[in-house]
């Protein structure tokens, strides 16, 4: 019996980056939401790395119970300058039903923040996979969420490259919509810089999740699940969900 691993394929991005995703011929529905969550795994998050892991597990669990959950394909990755190309994919785009706790091992964060690489990786992988699905007559929208506690310290990719990838939503007409949300956690010191980065590259929203407390992280999990769910409910409307909360 084929396992989910047998059903995945690898896509290649610029700069030697890769991503994985379920093979298109394994998908039975007519439309999908591609949801990507990229999580800061740098030295500064080590005091709450376990809580970030719990946050993701909670978000995934909540998503499973949401409407249209069978039309959501989720990809989760961590970013850290020690990882090859700055990003460690925990799992590629796959149905919620195929995600297990084993997909999210505990981490031991160290290293700097390749924020540009992370954002580029998330957006470019979404664009590439969306093109693949579109070529198979599938209708696709997307949401990419990046959670960071700091600004970029070192990356191979540039803001210009990110801006070009984000701009493909309009030029390529493959995605119905692609909302990119940058979330700062414990990042009050860097708000101005992160807001500026958001403006420079065309990220949809920058939201401040506050301190990395259990309450705030629980709210963050709820926000991620709700945002993805609302995006999937907007499939077929031709536009993004209008009702994603503006605050966490």
């Amino acid at each position, binding site marked *: 019996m084929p396992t989910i691993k047998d059903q995945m394929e690898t896509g290649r991005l610029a700069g030697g980056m890769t991503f994985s995703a379920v093979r298109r011929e*394994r998908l039975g529905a007519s439309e999908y939401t591609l949801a990507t969550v990229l999580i800061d795994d740098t030295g500064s998050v080590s005091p709450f790395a376990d809580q970030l892991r719990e946050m993701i597990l909670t978000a995934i669990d909540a998503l499973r119970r949401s409407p249209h959950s069978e039309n959501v394909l989720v990809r989760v990755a961590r970013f850290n300058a020690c990882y090859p190309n700055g990003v460690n994919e925990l799992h590629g785009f796959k149905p919620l039903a195929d995600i297990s706790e084993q997909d999210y091992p505990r981490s031991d964060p160290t290293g700097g923040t390749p924020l540009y690489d992370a954002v580029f990786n998330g957006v470019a992988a979404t664009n590439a996979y969306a093109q693949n699905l579109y070529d198979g007559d599938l209708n696709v929208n997307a949401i990419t969420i990046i959670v960071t506690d700091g600004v970029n310290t070192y990356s191979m990719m540039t803001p210009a490259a990110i801006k070009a990838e984000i701009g493909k939503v309009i030029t390529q007409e493959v995605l119905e919509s692609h909302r990119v949300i940058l979330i700062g956690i414990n990042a009050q010191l860097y708000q101005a810089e992160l807001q500026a980065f958001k403006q420079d590259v065309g990220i949809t929203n920058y939201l401040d999740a506050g301190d990395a407390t259990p309450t705030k992280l629980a709210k963050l999990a709820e926000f991620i699940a709700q945002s993805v769910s609302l995006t999937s409910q907007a499939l077929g409307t031709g536009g993004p969900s209008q009702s994603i909360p503006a605050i966490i």
Partner: protein
Amino acid sequence: MLTMTTDVVIQLGRQHQRLGNPCQDHALAGHFPAGGAYAVIADGCSHGGQTDLGARLTTLATRQLLAEENGSASTPAAAERFGERLAARLALSQELLGLTPADLLATSGGLRVSPQEGAMLRLFGDGAYATVSQTGEVALTLLAWRDNRPFYPIYHQVGLADFLALQGQDPATPSLTWTRWRGPREALVPEAQGELSLAEGIRGYRRVFSPAELAELQLIVLFTDGLQQLDPYDVPTAASRLLDFKSLAGTFVKRRVAREVRELAKVGLGPRDDLGIAAICLTQTPED
């Protein structure tokens, strides 16, 4: 071993959409509990009554009769009288639900596939069907009644005399034309054309597939006659576009039609008439 998957799509045409009218085509496809698969279409007369309901009742009644055949609850004589039996079921629905005969003016197309016995396709009225072979060759057959006056099964219960009068009374009158195209999907060319008599058309167009023929096929697809009104395409091009499945998993017909309609809508084109499609995908898998 033959495994079968199915899918349908029911697409509202622009004419009805513009007027706020419901879709008058319907389609069903699936598996019988006893084994085997079915694909059914119906097209309600646009000048009838509530033929959106009539089309749905027609697909349900057709499926019911196909299930009886599949389960051997039907005799050869009963199979011959499929059209009359369908009309009787519709008349019962009419009485139970307070409908009128005008509500039940709908064509009926039904395909039953059994890995052991082969397949039987019946079409009452107009419509089309296509087969796609394992090698990708497509054979498309379009059925059209003279003067665009199709036979509706409900005529067996009421209106048959009027229908016969319009068609010229003589049962031998050529009344139903079939046209066939064949070739690779993207290059269908006319192959043949023929006519069925009035009597044959009332009895229903039939196509039997032997198990050996089934083994050579990948897809059998039924279309309502909305296939003829998919702007800007002619019939073979429309079929070619709608059969361009990128994969045969899950909702493969819905995906293809949705994409085609969306792309055509960008330039103000698409289905003028309602369109119903029902498909059975045949996959040969090795025995365990």
